């Protein structure tokens, strides 16, 4: 088999030394490998967006049908990876290198959109969440933010009722949001660790939401010409105590998001929100991101929406 893309960072590590790992989890369109340093490497099917520390395969196949199993050993050589007890070899010597670093507004290729237009797009995003989003994840909890964040009324409907599960997490969620809005880096590690891992999926809903919030902070800071160091500091506070609080896949995703490193569709969505690009582009990536997992995409979009509103309100003195 052949890879079409490989993340730059992973490729560099492999070129420096031989990496060994074992299969951690297998799904239809992807599988994950845990290396000797407990870092997760993802193999993605051709329809999946490139993501940090990943290799994307050219062939359209089901990894479940390939006979891959948890625990199988892999060795990453300079040009290919071989999966121990199988005949499977994946070549990446001709793959494109994909850089997961955030594309910030210091890059001259990006032209900022006006704040008015960004607000308009956020309003479209809210409509999208309402009309197309999957509501079984973080969505009902956003109702509790009604009096905390300016301009989010659109997302709320008095008919939304919290289930027992949402009632259970509500106070902790509000406590986290309070420390996030006030940028309290002392309280954030504790309040974030109390909400991480809430939700049903392999990347629980709250974690997806937090990823959206963190990535949007990096991009909005760049868009608004704010101090990026502070943005990284806040995000670091959020992930400080998350180890072993959630699934390994989710933990890795959150760590990457805290640095603004997200998969290519997620990245394109934030860029199309803030940069002067066509509205079709924005809508296309909203749809693509909303297709992630079951509720994951909507949870991420909710994070981007709330995170962006908080940053813009703060900037505008709201």
């Amino acid at each position, binding site marked *: 088999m052949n890879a079409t893309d490989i993340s730059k960072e992973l490729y560099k590590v492999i070129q420096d030394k031989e990496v060994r790992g074992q299969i951690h989890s297998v*799904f239809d369109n992807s599988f994950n490998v845990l290396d000797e340093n407990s870092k997760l490497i993802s193999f993605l099917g051709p329809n999946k967006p490139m993501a940090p520390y990943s290799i994307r395969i050219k062939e359209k196949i089901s990894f479940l049908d390939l006979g891959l199993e948890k625990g199988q050993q892999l060795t990453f050589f300079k040009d290919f990876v071989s999966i121990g007890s199988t005949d499977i070899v994946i070549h990446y010597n001709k793959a494109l290198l994909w850089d997961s670093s955030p594309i910030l507004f210091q890059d001259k290729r990006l032209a900022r959109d006006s704040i008015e237009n960004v607000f308009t797009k956020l309003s479209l995003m809210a409509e*999208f969440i309402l009309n197309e989003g999957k509501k079984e994840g973080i969505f009902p909890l956003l109702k509790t933010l009604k009096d905390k964040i300016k301009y989010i009324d659109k997302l709320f409907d008095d008919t939304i009722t919290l289930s027992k599960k949402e009632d259970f997490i509500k106070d902790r969620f509000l406590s986290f949001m309070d420390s996030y809005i006030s940028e309290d880096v002392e309280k954030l590690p504790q309040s974030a660790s109390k*909400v991480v*891992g*809430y939700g*049903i*999926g*392999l990347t629980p809903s709250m974690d997806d939401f937090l990823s959206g919030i963190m990535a949007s902070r990096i991009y909005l800071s760049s868009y608004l010409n704010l101090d990026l160091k502070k943005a990284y500091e806040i995000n670091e506070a959020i992930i400080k105590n998350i180890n072993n609080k959630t699934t390994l*896949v989710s933990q890795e995703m959150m760590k990457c998001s805290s640095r603004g490193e997200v998969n290519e569709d997620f990245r394109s969505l934030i860029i199309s929100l803030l940069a002067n690009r066509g509205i079709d582009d924005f809508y296309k990536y909203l749809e693509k991101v909303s297709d992630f997992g079951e509720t994951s995409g909507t949870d991420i979009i909710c994070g981007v929406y709330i995170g962006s509103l908080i940053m813009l309100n703060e900037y505008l003195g709201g």
Partner: protein
Amino acid sequence: MSSVKYEIRKNTYYDSVTLMLISKEIKKIDGVKEALVGMGTDLNKELAENLAISNDDIRNLSPNDFFVTVLADDNVQIETISAEVDKLLSNKKKSNESDYMPPTLESALKHEPESNIVVISVAGEYAAAEAKKALNNNLHVMLFSDNVSIEDERELKELACQKGLLMMGPDCGTAIINNVPLAFANVVRKGHIGIVGASGTGTQEVTVIIDKLGEGVSQVIGTGGRDLKAEIGGLMMLQGIEALKNDPQTKVIVLISKPPAEEVAEKVLKAIENSPKPVVVDFIGGDRKLIEKYGAYSCVSLEDAARKAVALLRGEEVRDFEGFSLPDEEIEKIVDREVAKFDKTQKYLRAYYTGGTLADEAMKLLSSSIGNIYSNIPLTPEYKLEDVRVSKEHTCIDFGDDEFTRGKPHPMIDPVSRVERLMKEDDEEVAVLLMDFVLGYGSHEDPVGEMLPAIKEAKERMAKKGKYLCVVGSVCGTENDPQDLRESQRRLEEAGVIVMPSNAQAVRLAGLILNKIK
């Protein structure tokens, strides 16, 4: 007695789509009162504790362990839960062998260059642009999306007319083209009755009854609900009429719509005047004399429209159908039996519909016999419910209307809003509950199963107070629909629901019962 039952799969990962599906299905198992499905994160473990469905094994899980824990009646075996999980995982694997899904119209056309119709379901603000793109590619359009401006609708339909294409919609809920059901549609046998419909469930009801009577449809063309408004001028109904007139498979034409704007009604009726094919028109509650003036057959209900079309096709006598399929004596017996069970204070109707046109038909058929009906889609503005979430005296609710679907799926897809309303309401003066159950593609996989627990509980609640709740319903579905029509009817009857063969008959029966109470 209830107890906690659980299943743990160490170091096992499922994707979130699967986990959500498992969670939903486990909750549906009879006897399951509370359920939590997920990975063993600290938070999920705390949540299990909080819901009183935890134990030491669950407390010791790691975030990379999958678990299901439930509070269930003692007769529910953990093996049932495990079997359900395995069944869902195996179904999921099969369904993952999916086809290529093109992300844009361009790639879809590259993939299927022979296509000549496109179904569009995107957010309203983008729908018109997509539809225009499709029409410019000489494709017929079924536009499922709503929230398209009336100006855009007019422009799109004018473009379609210039190009000789169909522009079905916006907000077009149903169509059957060359025997292929699109969006919400039933599996109706192929035949010689062609329909142009401006109302979704109204059209479905007519097609289903045609099928039940042993005939079939040639084409079912949807127009969208606003087509017969003055601003649009019935452009697509006129286009549809022409298409059916020229279709050799179509022998009888049926037109269905809520009462159109007067000038549009005249325009449409002129288009069928002197039609070589007989035309049945149901402008639900509209002016029958006007229809007959142009040589078409007018109707008293959707069922009547279907029956007239079948009679015309078969060369049989055409007459109004205002009665029941069962003999009158049988109906009288049912009415007497039900009325005898009520308490003296019970007198009101609750009509809870997932189909908007069916709700509208119910109010039109009932208001002359039982009096005014409050609604979120009232016949006259003074009977608009002040708060659509609170019923009052006789009430009819269309759960598919905007107030109930904002941010949520349509109740034909997910009937939760109707279930919750029934579970919550506790009006002791209610005598009759009237309901529809719409089967077919697009609808929930088991609309009856979703409602049954709420119906049973509502009946039990009333019984505990020494009252009786009469539930009358109709199932809009065919033998070949994916949801199993017969089984749906059987389960409703087993739960004490009187199942009538059409919405009109269910409404009439409810009317007779309520009048007899008076």
